[in-house]
Protein backbone atom coordinates (compact mmCIF):
# COMPACT_ATOMS: atom_id res chain seq x y z
CA UNK A 1 0.00 0.00 0.00
CA UNK A 2 1.36 3.43 -0.98
CA UNK A 3 0.85 5.75 1.95
CA UNK A 4 1.31 9.50 1.66
CA UNK A 5 0.73 12.55 3.74
CA UNK A 6 0.51 13.28 7.45
CA UNK A 7 -0.66 10.73 10.00
CA UNK A 8 -2.73 13.33 11.80
CA UNK A 9 -5.55 14.77 9.76
CA UNK A 10 -8.12 12.96 7.61
CA UNK A 11 -7.16 9.58 6.18
CA UNK A 12 -8.47 8.58 2.76
CA UNK A 13 -8.26 5.21 1.02
CA UNK A 14 -7.88 5.67 -2.73
CA UNK A 15 -9.47 2.69 -4.47
CA UNK A 16 -7.92 2.62 -7.93
CA UNK A 17 -9.46 1.71 -11.28
CA UNK A 18 -9.31 -1.95 -12.29
CA UNK A 19 -7.24 -3.74 -14.93
CA UNK A 20 -5.71 -1.64 -17.69
CA UNK A 21 -7.46 1.49 -16.46
CA UNK A 22 -5.13 1.48 -13.46
CA UNK A 23 -2.14 1.76 -15.80
CA UNK A 24 -3.73 4.77 -17.46
CA UNK A 25 -4.48 6.55 -14.19
CA UNK A 26 -1.33 5.72 -12.25
CA UNK A 27 0.24 9.15 -12.74
CA UNK A 28 -3.07 10.87 -11.94
CA UNK A 29 -3.42 9.03 -8.63
CA UNK A 30 0.22 9.71 -7.74
CA UNK A 31 -0.22 13.45 -8.32
CA UNK A 32 -3.54 13.34 -6.45
CA UNK A 33 -1.80 11.78 -3.44
CA UNK A 34 0.82 14.54 -3.50
CA UNK A 35 -1.86 17.24 -3.70
CA UNK A 36 -3.81 15.72 -0.82
CA UNK A 37 -0.64 15.45 1.28
CA UNK A 38 0.01 19.16 0.74
CA UNK A 39 -3.51 19.81 2.04
CA UNK A 40 -2.85 17.80 5.21
CA UNK A 41 -4.76 14.70 4.05
CA UNK A 42 -3.21 11.25 4.37
CA UNK A 43 -3.91 8.83 1.54
CA UNK A 44 -3.60 5.06 1.21
CA UNK A 45 -3.38 3.55 -2.28
CA UNK A 46 -3.55 -0.26 -2.19
CA UNK A 47 -2.63 -2.88 -4.76
CA UNK A 48 -5.58 -5.23 -4.89
CA UNK A 49 -4.59 -8.92 -4.80
CA UNK A 50 -3.33 -9.99 -8.19
CA UNK A 51 -2.36 -6.45 -9.19
CA UNK A 52 0.71 -4.27 -8.86
CA UNK A 53 3.14 -5.57 -6.26
CA UNK A 54 0.77 -8.30 -5.04
CA UNK A 55 2.22 -11.80 -5.15
CA UNK A 56 -1.16 -13.48 -5.66
CA UNK A 57 -1.66 -14.74 -9.20
CA UNK A 58 -4.72 -12.98 -10.59
CA UNK A 59 -6.11 -16.12 -12.29
CA UNK A 60 -6.49 -17.78 -8.87
CA UNK A 61 -8.70 -15.03 -7.51
CA UNK A 62 -12.44 -14.42 -7.60
CA UNK A 63 -14.48 -11.27 -7.18
CA UNK A 64 -15.15 -12.15 -3.52
CA UNK A 65 -11.40 -12.02 -2.90
CA UNK A 66 -11.44 -8.37 -3.92
CA UNK A 67 -14.44 -7.63 -1.70
CA UNK A 68 -12.61 -9.33 1.17
CA UNK A 69 -9.47 -7.34 0.38
CA UNK A 70 -11.43 -4.07 0.48
CA UNK A 71 -12.71 -5.01 3.94
CA UNK A 72 -9.19 -5.89 5.08
CA UNK A 73 -7.83 -2.61 3.71
CA UNK A 74 -10.50 -0.64 5.54
CA UNK A 75 -9.76 -2.49 8.78
CA UNK A 76 -6.00 -2.01 8.43
CA UNK A 77 -6.29 1.72 7.84
CA UNK A 78 -8.82 2.09 10.67
CA UNK A 79 -6.41 0.37 13.05
CA UNK A 80 -3.52 2.62 12.03
CA UNK A 81 -5.56 5.82 11.86
CA UNK A 82 -7.64 5.24 14.96
CA UNK A 83 -10.98 5.46 13.16
CA UNK A 84 -12.74 4.39 9.99
CA UNK A 85 -11.23 6.07 6.93
CA UNK A 86 -12.90 7.93 4.14
CA UNK A 87 -12.79 6.31 0.72
CA UNK A 88 -12.29 7.88 -2.71
CA UNK A 89 -13.02 5.34 -5.42
CA UNK A 90 -12.07 5.70 -9.06
CA UNK A 91 -13.86 3.92 -11.92
CA UNK A 92 -14.09 0.18 -11.07
CA UNK A 93 -12.86 0.94 -7.57
CA UNK A 94 -16.42 2.13 -6.99
CA UNK A 95 -17.56 -1.49 -7.28
CA UNK A 96 -15.69 -2.30 -4.08
CA UNK A 97 -16.00 0.83 -1.95
CA UNK A 98 -19.10 -0.36 -0.11
CA UNK A 99 -17.06 -3.24 1.35
CA UNK A 100 -14.48 -1.03 3.03
CA UNK A 101 -16.43 0.03 6.10
CA UNK A 102 -15.59 3.66 5.36
CA UNK A 103 -17.18 6.62 7.12
CA UNK A 104 -18.16 8.19 3.79
CA UNK A 105 -17.60 7.60 0.07
CA UNK A 106 -16.53 9.84 -2.80
CA UNK A 107 -16.39 8.57 -6.36
CA UNK A 108 -14.83 9.65 -9.64
CA UNK A 109 -16.54 8.33 -12.79
CA UNK A 110 -17.90 5.11 -11.24
CA UNK A 111 -17.88 2.21 -13.68
CA UNK A 112 -20.32 -0.64 -14.13
CA UNK A 113 -18.71 -4.08 -13.83
CA UNK A 114 -20.42 -5.53 -16.89
CA UNK A 115 -19.18 -2.57 -18.99
CA UNK A 116 -15.60 -3.08 -17.80
CA UNK A 117 -15.75 -6.79 -18.61
CA UNK A 118 -17.28 -6.09 -22.01
CA UNK A 119 -14.41 -3.72 -22.84
CA UNK A 120 -11.77 -6.33 -21.93
CA UNK A 121 -13.56 -9.02 -23.93
CA UNK A 122 -13.81 -6.60 -26.86
CA UNK A 123 -10.04 -5.92 -26.78
CA UNK A 124 -9.29 -9.64 -26.60
CA UNK A 125 -11.68 -10.47 -29.46
CA UNK A 126 -9.98 -7.84 -31.63
CA UNK A 127 -6.55 -9.27 -30.78
CA UNK A 128 -7.82 -12.80 -31.48
CA UNK A 129 -9.11 -11.73 -34.89
CA UNK A 130 -5.75 -10.23 -35.78
CA UNK A 131 -3.80 -13.30 -34.72
CA UNK A 132 -6.32 -15.92 -35.82
CA UNK A 133 -6.72 -17.31 -32.30
CA UNK A 134 -9.75 -17.77 -30.07
CA UNK A 135 -10.48 -17.14 -26.39
CA UNK A 136 -13.58 -19.18 -25.56
CA UNK A 137 -15.97 -17.77 -22.98
CA UNK A 138 -16.24 -21.25 -21.47
CA UNK A 139 -12.59 -21.29 -20.43
CA UNK A 140 -11.85 -21.61 -16.72
CA UNK A 141 -9.45 -18.72 -17.02
CA UNK A 142 -9.83 -16.27 -19.90
CA UNK A 143 -6.83 -14.19 -20.88
CA UNK A 144 -8.50 -10.85 -21.47
CA UNK A 145 -6.07 -8.25 -22.77
CA UNK A 146 -3.33 -9.71 -20.59
CA UNK A 147 -5.47 -10.17 -17.48
CA UNK A 148 -6.14 -13.80 -16.60
CA UNK A 149 -9.64 -13.75 -15.17
CA UNK A 150 -11.15 -16.83 -13.56
CA UNK A 151 -14.81 -17.75 -14.04
CA UNK A 152 -15.72 -16.53 -10.51
CA UNK A 153 -13.91 -13.24 -11.15
CA UNK A 154 -15.73 -12.73 -14.45
CA UNK A 155 -19.10 -13.64 -12.96
CA UNK A 156 -18.64 -11.31 -10.01
CA UNK A 157 -17.42 -8.47 -12.21
CA UNK A 158 -20.31 -8.93 -14.64
CA UNK A 159 -22.84 -8.60 -11.84
CA UNK A 160 -21.12 -5.77 -10.00
CA UNK A 161 -22.64 -2.31 -9.97
CA UNK A 162 -21.70 0.67 -7.85
CA UNK A 163 -24.05 0.83 -4.87
CA UNK A 164 -26.43 3.78 -4.98
CA UNK A 165 -25.94 7.05 -3.18
CA UNK A 166 -22.28 7.67 -2.50
CA UNK A 167 -21.79 10.84 -0.54
CA UNK A 168 -20.32 12.68 -3.49
CA UNK A 169 -19.65 11.88 -7.12
CA UNK A 170 -17.37 13.63 -9.65
CA UNK A 171 -18.22 12.96 -13.30
CA UNK A 172 -15.54 12.43 -15.95
CA UNK A 173 -15.31 14.50 -19.11
CA UNK A 174 -15.36 12.76 -22.51
CA UNK A 175 -12.05 11.40 -23.73
CA UNK A 176 -10.81 10.58 -20.25
CA UNK A 177 -7.32 9.24 -19.54
CA UNK A 178 -8.28 5.56 -19.60
CA UNK A 179 -9.71 5.83 -23.10
CA UNK A 180 -6.49 7.00 -24.69
CA UNK A 181 -3.94 5.00 -26.63
CA UNK A 182 -1.08 5.72 -24.23
CA UNK A 183 -0.99 6.26 -20.47
CA UNK A 184 -0.65 9.94 -19.68
CA UNK A 185 -0.86 12.42 -16.88
CA UNK A 186 -3.32 15.19 -16.18
CA UNK A 187 -2.04 17.27 -13.30
CA UNK A 188 -4.80 19.85 -13.74
CA UNK A 189 -7.38 17.12 -13.21
CA UNK A 190 -5.47 15.79 -10.20
CA UNK A 191 -5.57 19.26 -8.64
CA UNK A 192 -9.27 19.62 -9.43
CA UNK A 193 -10.05 16.26 -7.86
CA UNK A 194 -7.93 17.06 -4.80
CA UNK A 195 -9.85 20.31 -4.34
CA UNK A 196 -13.16 18.53 -4.58
CA UNK A 197 -12.04 15.83 -2.17
CA UNK A 198 -10.79 18.37 0.37
CA UNK A 199 -14.03 20.31 0.08
CA UNK A 200 -15.96 17.07 0.60
CA UNK A 201 -13.85 16.13 3.62
CA UNK A 202 -14.78 19.42 5.24
CA UNK A 203 -18.46 18.60 4.80
CA UNK A 204 -17.86 15.15 6.31
CA UNK A 205 -16.08 16.62 9.31
CA UNK A 206 -18.81 19.22 9.76
CA UNK A 207 -21.51 16.60 10.25
Amino acid at each position, binding site marked *: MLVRGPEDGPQVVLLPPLFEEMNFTRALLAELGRCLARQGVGSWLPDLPGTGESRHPLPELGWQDWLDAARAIGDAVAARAGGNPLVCAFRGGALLDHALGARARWRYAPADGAALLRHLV*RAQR*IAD*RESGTDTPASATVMDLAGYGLSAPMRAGLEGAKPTPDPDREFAAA*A*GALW*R*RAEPGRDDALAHLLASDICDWIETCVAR
Partner: protein
Amino acid sequence: MAATDTDGIEATVRAVLADVLAIDPARVARFTDETPLFGALPELDSMTVAGLLTELEDRLGIRIEDDEVSGDLLSTFGTLLRFAEGKAAR
Protein backbone atom coordinates in the same frame (compact mmCIF):
# COMPACT_ATOMS: atom_id res chain seq x y z
CA MET B 1 -25.74 14.09 -24.81
CA ALA B 2 -25.65 11.65 -27.73
CA ALA B 3 -25.19 13.34 -31.10
CA THR B 4 -27.73 12.12 -33.64
CA ASP B 5 -27.59 14.59 -36.53
CA THR B 6 -25.06 13.96 -39.32
CA ASP B 7 -22.87 16.99 -38.61
CA GLY B 8 -22.90 16.20 -34.91
CA ILE B 9 -21.99 12.57 -35.57
CA GLU B 10 -19.08 13.55 -37.81
CA ALA B 11 -17.81 16.10 -35.31
CA THR B 12 -18.03 13.45 -32.59
CA VAL B 13 -16.13 10.85 -34.61
CA ARG B 14 -13.38 13.38 -35.34
CA ALA B 15 -13.24 14.38 -31.67
CA VAL B 16 -13.00 10.75 -30.54
CA LEU B 17 -10.12 10.08 -32.96
CA ALA B 18 -8.32 13.19 -31.73
CA ASP B 19 -8.87 12.42 -28.04
CA VAL B 20 -8.21 8.67 -28.04
CA LEU B 21 -5.30 8.67 -30.49
CA ALA B 22 -3.84 11.98 -29.28
CA ILE B 23 -3.85 13.42 -32.80
CA ASP B 24 -3.85 17.18 -33.24
CA PRO B 25 -7.50 18.15 -33.90
CA ALA B 26 -6.33 20.34 -36.80
CA ARG B 27 -4.91 17.23 -38.46
CA VAL B 28 -8.07 15.23 -37.79
CA ALA B 29 -10.10 18.11 -39.29
CA ARG B 30 -8.30 17.44 -42.59
CA PHE B 31 -9.26 13.74 -42.68
CA THR B 32 -11.35 12.92 -45.73
CA ASP B 33 -13.37 9.81 -46.52
CA GLU B 34 -10.26 8.31 -48.14
CA THR B 35 -7.87 8.97 -45.24
CA PRO B 36 -6.62 5.55 -44.14
CA LEU B 37 -6.90 4.68 -40.41
CA PHE B 38 -5.92 1.11 -39.54
CA GLY B 39 -2.45 0.49 -40.83
CA ALA B 40 -1.70 4.16 -41.45
CA LEU B 41 -1.94 5.55 -37.93
CA PRO B 42 0.66 4.45 -35.41
CA GLU B 43 -0.07 2.12 -32.50
CA LEU B 44 -3.61 0.98 -33.34
CA ASP B 45 -3.32 -2.08 -31.10
CA SER B 46 -6.31 -4.08 -29.93
CA MET B 47 -6.72 -2.18 -26.64
CA THR B 48 -6.60 1.16 -28.50
CA VAL B 49 -9.20 -0.01 -31.02
CA ALA B 50 -11.36 -1.20 -28.14
CA GLY B 51 -10.97 2.23 -26.53
CA LEU B 52 -12.02 3.94 -29.77
CA LEU B 53 -15.13 1.80 -30.03
CA THR B 54 -16.15 2.12 -26.39
CA GLU B 55 -15.68 5.91 -26.51
CA LEU B 56 -17.78 6.09 -29.71
CA GLU B 57 -20.48 4.04 -28.00
CA ASP B 58 -20.56 6.37 -25.02
CA ARG B 59 -20.58 9.62 -27.00
CA LEU B 60 -23.01 8.55 -29.73
CA GLY B 61 -25.30 6.48 -27.50
CA ILE B 62 -24.85 3.40 -29.71
CA ARG B 63 -23.93 -0.21 -29.08
CA ILE B 64 -21.31 -1.90 -31.26
CA GLU B 65 -21.42 -5.68 -31.29
CA ASP B 66 -18.18 -7.66 -31.56
CA ASP B 67 -19.25 -9.23 -34.86
CA GLU B 68 -19.60 -5.76 -36.39
CA VAL B 69 -15.92 -5.05 -35.78
CA SER B 70 -13.94 -6.07 -38.83
CA GLY B 71 -10.64 -4.85 -40.20
CA ASP B 72 -12.69 -2.94 -42.79
CA LEU B 73 -14.38 -0.83 -40.12
CA LEU B 74 -11.23 1.17 -39.54
CA SER B 75 -9.77 1.03 -43.04
CA THR B 76 -10.58 4.70 -43.72
CA PHE B 77 -12.11 7.67 -41.95
CA GLY B 78 -15.06 7.27 -44.37
CA THR B 79 -15.75 3.64 -43.42
CA LEU B 80 -15.73 4.49 -39.71
CA LEU B 81 -17.91 7.55 -40.22
CA ARG B 82 -20.48 5.69 -42.38
CA PHE B 83 -20.65 2.97 -39.73
CA ALA B 84 -21.16 5.49 -36.93
CA GLU B 85 -23.83 7.37 -38.90
CA GLY B 86 -25.66 4.12 -39.64
CA LYS B 87 -25.67 3.10 -35.97
CA ALA B 88 -26.56 6.50 -34.56
CA ALA B 89 -29.46 6.96 -36.95
CA ARG B 90 -31.29 3.90 -35.61
